[in-house]
């Protein structure tokens, strides 16, 4: 590192002082909440599929027979 870079480094260190890196609490309860939320949420592609099916039935009501046949 040259002299200029060292000056810039000291300027940065002065402007962005050291931070406390200690974790103050256990994050596991938050992690559990995140896992629960994701388990209960419906993926976007399921919604897209449901929308397509409803739209298909609305446009062509006879297609419901085909849909029921496949279920």
């Amino acid at each position, binding site marked *: 590192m040259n002299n*200029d*870079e060292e*000056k*810039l*480094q000291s*300027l*940065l*260190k*002065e*402007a*962005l002082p050291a*931070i*406390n*890196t*200690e*974790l*103050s609490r*256990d*994050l*596991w309860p*938050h*992690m559990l909440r*995140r*896992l629960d939320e*994701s388990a209960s949420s419906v993926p976007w592609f399921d919604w897209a599929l449901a929308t397509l099916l409803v739209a298909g039935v609305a446009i062509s009501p006879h297609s419901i027979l085909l849909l029921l046949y496949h279920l």
Partner: protein
Amino acid sequence: MPVLEQDSELLQQFANGDPGAFERLFRDHQTEVYRWVVRIVRDPAAAEDLTIETFWRIHRAHARFDPQRSFSAWARRIATNAALDHLKSRPREVALVEQFVAPASSDPVVQKDVRERTQQAFCRLPAKLRIVATLALIEELSYKEIADALGISAGAVKVRVFRAVRQLRSELTRLGVTP
């Protein structure tokens, strides 16, 4: 970050999707992941959220984890990507300030002003450059360590540091601070 290696059985259980193994890994590694992330984003609240985000990504990717490899190194890389995404999502400091020439002075007001302008210049760096500037210039990590965390070569880190320094110097000059 201290390397905390796990027994291979636990890592294999995690890779197989065992929730208990995931919890144990979370409890063992949350502190080191947090410490790494907070050094990058320099915001404790954001670092906590990013620690959760990192483990969420780890949880989703469990099947891709190779139990023969280091969990710490894998977690660190995922944490770095999460921190990078966070930095990218935040709008860069765009406030324009009048041209100002800071005289060489021991005046605390001037020093405070120089600090603020330096922070402003730093925040204007693109996320990819800011992350290497933080780790190389402020945290003084080796290029090798940064390269491992970012998944790039040490040469690429060196180039990014060079570009960050050049861009910082140019921005500081524009703001009237002579580094």
